[in-house]
C-alpha cells in the first residue's frame, strides 16, 4: 500500500498539464479541458469512496456482514486517500509520509496491544484523535497565507474548530473517566459539576457561537479565532465532566457523532464533497446509535447529558445502612456444592469478569455444567461492562455458544431458575432500579436475579460499583457472596467440581 501511494505521490508531484498551458492560447484551452476532466474523475472517485463507506456502515450493523462491512469501509477510505494524493494540489510528499508513518505506527500498535477490557478507552482516544485532525486542518486553513479568507469559509472554519476541539477534550475526559483515573484523590469517574454548571455551559455555548458569527462578518479577526479554540477546548471538558463514568459509552458514541460533523465542517472549508458526505454520514448515524444505546438503558439522551448520574452522595448513609444487615459469605467448595445440586443456572457477567479476564474459565464452568445436564444460560445486559456489547465480545472470545446468550427477555424465567451466578456485575442486577423510586438508577431495566432461588455474587468487595450506587441485592436472604477475584474464584469452583 505504501509503495502505491509513493508512486501516486510521484505522479502528483510531476508537472501537470498546467505547466505547459501557458505556452499559447490553444494550449491553455486544452489544459483547462484536461484539468476539468481530472476534476470530474476525482469527484467520481470521491463519490465511489463515499458509496463504499455507506455500504460498509450498513453492513457493520448486521452480525453476518459486520466484518466484511468494516473492510469495505476501509477500502472506501483508501480510495479517498489515494484520490486526494492524485489531486494536483499536493506539492510535497515528505510531510505526508512522515505523518502517515508516525500515525500509522501509533494506530497499529495501539490497536494490536489494547486488551479487550480497554476497548472503550481506546475508541475514545481514536475518536479524540480524529477530532483533533479536523480542528488542526481548520486552524491551518485559517492561517494559511495563500488562501483568501472569505466570510462563508470562516463560518465553516469556526464550526470545524468548535466541534473538533470539543471532541478532543471531551474524548480525553471520557478516557480519563473510563480509566478510573484520580486527580488529587478525586475519582474522575464521579460526576464533577460546578454549581450552576448548566448555566455556565449554556453561556459559553452562546458565547462561542457569537464568536463564530462575528468571525463570519469580520474574517480578519484573528483574536476571535484564537478565542474560539480556547473556549471550545474548555467546553469539551465542562460538558463531559458532570457525566458519570457509567454513562461514558453513550458519551463516546455522541462524541463520535461530533467528530463526523467536524469532518463535515472541514469539508465545507475545503469544498470537498467526499468529506461532506462521509462526515455527515457518521454524524447522523452516530446520533442514531447513541439514541439506541440510551434506549437500552431506558433513559433519554438529555437525561444522560444533564449528568449527575451515579454520584457518591450517599456514601455516609450507605455505610450506616449496611449496619444491621448481614452478608452471607461462601467459599469455592460450598459454591461448587450449590452448583452441583442445581438444575438450571443463569450466569450474569459484568465488568468484574472483564477486569479479571475470567471469561475463559467462566466458559469452562458453563461447559462443565452443561455436560452434567444443567440448563445453563448467560444473561447479557445491554449495558453490562463499560460499553454496550462488551460482554458479548468477551464471551465470543471464550467460544461461548451464541445461543446461550440471553437478553433481558429471560426475566420471566428467573423465578424457576435454581442458581444465579453474578460474576463481577453490579448495577445491572441492582433491585433498587426496579423497586426504589428514590434510587438514581430507578427505571433502568435489570436482570431480576433476586427472584432466582439462590443468588451467588462473585465480587471483590462490597464496594459500590462503577456507578457508585449501593446494591441491596448483596444483603438479601437468598444471596451469598463469593469474595475474591473472579478468575481465581471460578477456577477454584471448577477444580472443586472436577474433583468431586
Amino acid at each position, binding site marked *: 500500500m505504501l509503495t502505491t501511494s509513493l508512486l501516486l505521490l510521484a505522479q502528483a508531484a510531476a508537472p501537470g498539464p498546467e505547466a505547459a498551458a501557458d505556452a499559447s492560447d490553444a494550449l491553455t484551452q486544452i489544459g483547462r479541458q484536461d484539468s476539468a476532466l481530472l476534476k470530474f474523475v476525482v469527484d467520481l472517485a470521491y463519490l465511489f469512496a463515499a458509496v463504499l463507506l455507506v455500504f460498509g456502515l450498513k453492513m457493520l450493523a448486521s452480525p453476518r456482514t*459486520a466484518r466484511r462491512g468494516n473492510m469495505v469501509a476501509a477500502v472506501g477510505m483508501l480510495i479517498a486517500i489515494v484520490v486526494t494524493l492524485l489531486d494536483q494540489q499536493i506539492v510535497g510528499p515528505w510531510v505526508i509520509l512522515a505523518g502517515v508513518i508516525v500515525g500509522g505506527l501509533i494506530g497499529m500498535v495501539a490497536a494490536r496491544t489494547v486488551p479487550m477490557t480497554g476497548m472503550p478507552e*481506546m475508541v475514545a482516544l481514536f475518536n479524540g484523535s480524529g477530532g483533533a485532525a479536523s480542528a488542526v486542518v481548520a486552524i491551518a486553513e485559517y492561517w494559511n497565507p495563500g488562501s483568501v479568507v472569505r466570510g462563508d469559509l470562516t463560518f465553516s472554519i469556526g464550526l470545524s474548530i468548535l466541534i473538533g476541539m470539543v471532541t478532543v477534550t471531551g474524548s480525553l475526559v471520557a478516557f480519563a473517566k473510563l480509566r478510573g483515573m484520580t486527580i488529587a484523590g478525586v475519582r474522575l469517574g464521579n460526576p464533577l459539576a460546578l454549581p450552576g454548571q448548566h448555566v455556565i455551559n449554556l453561556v459559553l455555548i452562546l458565547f462561542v457561537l457569537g464568536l463564530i458569527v462575528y468571525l463570519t462578518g469580520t474574517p480578519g479577526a484573528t483574536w476571535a479565532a484564537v478565542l474560539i479554540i480556547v473556549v471550545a477546548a474548555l467546553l469539551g471538558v465542562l460538558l463531559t465532566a458532570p457525566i458519570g463514568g457509567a454513562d461514558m459509552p453513550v458519551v463516546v458514541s455522541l462524541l*463520535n457523532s461530533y467528530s463526523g460533523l467536524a469532518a463535515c465542517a472541514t*469539508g465545507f*472549508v475545503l469544498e470537498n464533497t467526499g468529506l461532506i458526505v462521509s462526515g455527515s454520514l457518521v454524524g447522523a448515524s452516530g446520533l442514531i*446509535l447513541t439514541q439506541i444505546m440510551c434506549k*437500552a438503558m431506558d433513559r433519554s439522551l438529555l437525561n444522560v447529558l444533564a449528568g449527575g448520574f451515579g454520584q457518591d452522595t450517599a456514601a455516609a448513609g450507605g455505610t450506616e445502612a449496611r449496619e444491621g444487615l448481614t452478608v452471607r459469605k461462601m467459599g469455592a467448595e460450598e459454591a461448587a456444592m450449590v452448583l452441583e445440586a442445581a438444575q438450571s443456572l443463569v450466569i450474569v457477567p459484568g465488568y468484574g469478569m472483564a477486569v479479571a479476564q475470567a471469561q475463559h474459565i467462566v466458559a469452562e464452568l458453563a461447559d462443565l455444567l452443561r455436560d452434567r445436564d444443567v440448563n445453563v444460560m448467560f444473561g447479557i445486559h445491554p449495558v453490562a461492562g463499560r*460499553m454496550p456489547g462488551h460482554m458479548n465480545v468477551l464471551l465470543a472470545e471464550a467460544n461461548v455458544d451464541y445461543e446461550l446468550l440471553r437478553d433481558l427477555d429471560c426475566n420471566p424465567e428467573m423465578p424457576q431458575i435454581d442458581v444465579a451466578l453474578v460474576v463481577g456485575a453490579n448495577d445491572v442486577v441492582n433491585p433498587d432500579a426496579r423497586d426504589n423510586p428514590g434510587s438514581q438508577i430507578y427505571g433502568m431495566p435489570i436482570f431480576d436475579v433476586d427472584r432466582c432461588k439462590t443468588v451467588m455474587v462473585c465480587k471483590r468487595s462490597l464496594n459500590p460499583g462503577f456507578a457508585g450506587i449501593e446494591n441491596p441485592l448483596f444483603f438479601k436472604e437468598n444471596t451469598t457472596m463469593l469474595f475474591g477475584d473472579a478468575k481465581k474464584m471460578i477456577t477454584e469452583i471448577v477444580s472443586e467440581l472436577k474433583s468431586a
Partner: protein
Amino acid sequence: MDLLVAQLDNEMLTSLGRNLGVFILAILLGFEVIVKVPPTLHTPLMSGSNAISGISIVGALLVAGGDFGWISIVFGFLAVTFATINVVGGFLVTDRMLAMFKRR
C-alpha cells in the same frame, strides 16, 4: 470589476448551495442506514463509524501536501498524524473485535 465580484459571488453561492444539498441528503441517509442494531454490535459499530470519521485525513493530506510554508509542515504533520491514528487504529481495532464473533 464589479462584474467580476458579482461572478465570484455567484460561483461561491452555487457551490455553497450544492454542498448544502449534499450535506442534507447525506444526513438523511445517515439516519436511515442504521435502524436496528443488536447490542452485540454496538461497540464494533461505534468503533467502525469512528474509523470512518477519520475521513478528515483527506483535509489533513491537502494541508500537509499544500504549499503554505511552515503551516503545511507543522499543522500538516500534526493533522496527518492524528487522522492516520484514527483511521488505521479504528479499522484495525474494529476488525479485531469482529474477528471474535465466530459462528459455530
